[in-house]
């Protein structure tokens, strides 16, 4: 049992290393183009909705807290609290995705979705399109991870309702928690890189 827990935990850490390199390719592309087109990226960044972005950042940080509390509840045998915190994490994840969908809608409306309908005022239209390509690729990939995370949480909730997890066995909760925190941390990097870089330019 101990060996299984070690194995699952190590397995998830190795998987997260893979995930870091998976996102790493996009972060590299971002770095290259930001250094090449610094001005254009700053301009383009100002068209992102900082209020919604900040709100979503807060939502995700709280969801990390509820996830940590869920693991704690499982480890200390508080089954009712475990269920509450798992559902709270799911709901917060859902709120994040909802807000993200609203933001995507605004971008679509403002012709900021790359493609034939892309419009950007000023001399940097082409470079701004690269910024928005990366914006959609990075936040889209992140959102895909959130959706997978909510799927995992659904399974955990169903199992937790049957009373499967307690101090003797809560490896799935712990390992899923690692994944959830990882997805949050990715957003902690995405938020300043995408939303905040244009703020110091007037």
């Amino acid at each position, binding site marked *: 049992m101990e060996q299984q827990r*070690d194995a699952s935990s*190590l*397995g998830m850490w190795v998987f997260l290393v*893979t995930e870091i390199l998976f996102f790493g390719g996009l972060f*590299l*592309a971002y770095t290259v*183009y930001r250094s*090449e087109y610094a001005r254009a990226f700053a301009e383009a960044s100002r068209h992102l909705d900082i209020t919604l972005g900040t709100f979503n950042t807060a939502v995700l940080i709280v969801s990390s807290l509820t996830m940590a509390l869920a693991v704690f509840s499982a480890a200390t045998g508080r089954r009712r609290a475990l269920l509450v915190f798992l559902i709270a994490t799911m709901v917060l994840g859902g709120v994040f995705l909802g807000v993200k969908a609203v933001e995507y809608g605004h971008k679509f409306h403002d012709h900021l979705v*790359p493609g034939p309908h892309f419009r950007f005022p000023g001399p940097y239209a082409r470079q701004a399109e690269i910024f928005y390509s990366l914006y959609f*690729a990075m936040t889209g990939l992140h959102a895909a991870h959130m959706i997978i995370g909510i799927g995992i949480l659904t399974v955990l909730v169903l199992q937790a309702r049957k009373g499967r997890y307690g101090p003797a066995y809560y490896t799935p909760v712990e390992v899923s928690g690692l994944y959830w925190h990882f997805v949050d941390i990715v957003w902690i990097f995405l938020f300043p890189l995408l939303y905040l870089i244009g703020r110091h330019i007037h």
Partner: protein
Amino acid sequence: MSSAVVVPPRSEHPVEPRVNYLNATYGVKSWLLTRDHKRIALLYLASITFFFFLGGLFALLIRLELLTPAGDLVQSQTYNKLFTMHGVIMVFFFLIPSIPAVLGNFLIPMMIGAKDLAFPRLNLLSWYIYMVGATFTLWAVVHGGVDTGWTFYTPYSTASSNTHVIATAVGIFITGFSSILTGLNFIVTIHTMRAPGLTWFRLPLFVWSHYATSLIFVLATPVIAVTLLMVAVERLFHLGIFDPRLGGDPILFQHLFWFYSHPAVYIMVLPAMGVVSELVTTFSRKNIFGYKFVAFASIGIAVLGFLVWGHHMFVSGQSVYAGMIFSLLSFLVAIPSAVKVFNWTATMYKGSISYRTPMLYAFGFIGLFTIGGLTGLFLATLGVDVHVHDTYFIVAHFHYIMVGGAIMGYLGGIHYWWPKISGKLYPEGWARFASLVIFLGFNLTFFPQFILGYLGMPRRYHAYPPEFQVLNVMSTAGASILGVGYLMPMIYLVWSMRYGKAAPPNPWGSTGLEWDTPSPPPTENFAVTPVVTGEPYHYSPGEIEIVG
């Protein structure tokens, strides 16, 4: 490995009907839903063998076209598709999974005295992911193929090519996750499931080399995955990530692509090196010379392999200083590689060498890998590379590593462990003959290509000036011999499954734990978890008679 403390005495009656992993359950479902690492290894063996011969068919068509200087058999567009599909299938669907997914899957749990890998269901999932990816790529092949070269260079792949780039890229993207999960499974298994007493420095070198390979699987594969995702997205939505007309940077693609694809070369050759370490010790009846050096050389190759990708881009517009650094780092990879070659040679020195088929493949590996590696040093030299880049010199060089190295190791390993896998002995005479045919056919195919490249024949053209014809005819003749050579093991190994002599548990007198179980092993591998009390490879010359 000495494990006699708990393991029951070896059975002297291997012919008795006995429950093993092959006959424990029957039916298609028992195979397709198996969680037994040994059965999953055989699922992989069947799948990659199919892709090996499919990729070989494309190679055959390439060589037939090049028999004559004029482009008469196929049009240039078709020729582009042929070499692309040959490369894509051989690299992603045969070479990368070959030794790890078949031999690694089969042997790692047994070599470390475990019942299975750490995540048996994940292991089965890996095979299904591989098959789904393979289906996408096969769909692309059947519907007209792809013509970008296996490298998918942008902007051609994203803006110009009108072939099935997306389906192929999606296939490779999906298959990549099968590699990642296999690597993850190996790393966790080697960390957490070693038998009592089996410390890191008592592990067989096969396990060390697979650990190094798994590191590359886990760290490099996600980068090609996200890169191909960007290619697919750029092509689909006409974004400007890599297309210079839209402000993108095509060199960025090359950086990302080679950040995976250079380490991928070590994914192919490191497991083969692990196999050769086992073969050389067994058939020289000697302990490996410098165990720790060989073990750490694997890790060294894996780490350095991540730092040399820029040598694929010496003429792509990268700065001269970057080129110099990458050139230097590429030379450094030669050090751990040479350590291995020297240590195998020193292991054989004064050993009692027996010239069994697996050992013939080991000899083949050492010789051909050395040629491939040394010509790699030519290419790492900036000035020489400018002269020979994109010529047949490159083609010959990497085939010496990938075919001369990786496939020799793969075939050597398949023969060596065949008695364990199938419970039957293969026909030794035929096997020796086939290994000789393969060795001669290989050299006749690829050695002339070094000369062709040095004389200036560029790769990836379906026509060439008439003065190159003699060498091309030699190469095509060699390829035909090589093709026959590859068919022979396919035939006699399948034959031996039914008609071969029953294999004893340990036909080679090997010391590895995997030989301490019956052939073929029971589903749970070991009746009692073995306890390891000594170093690996404790051979003494002439001690045991090799049977079979």
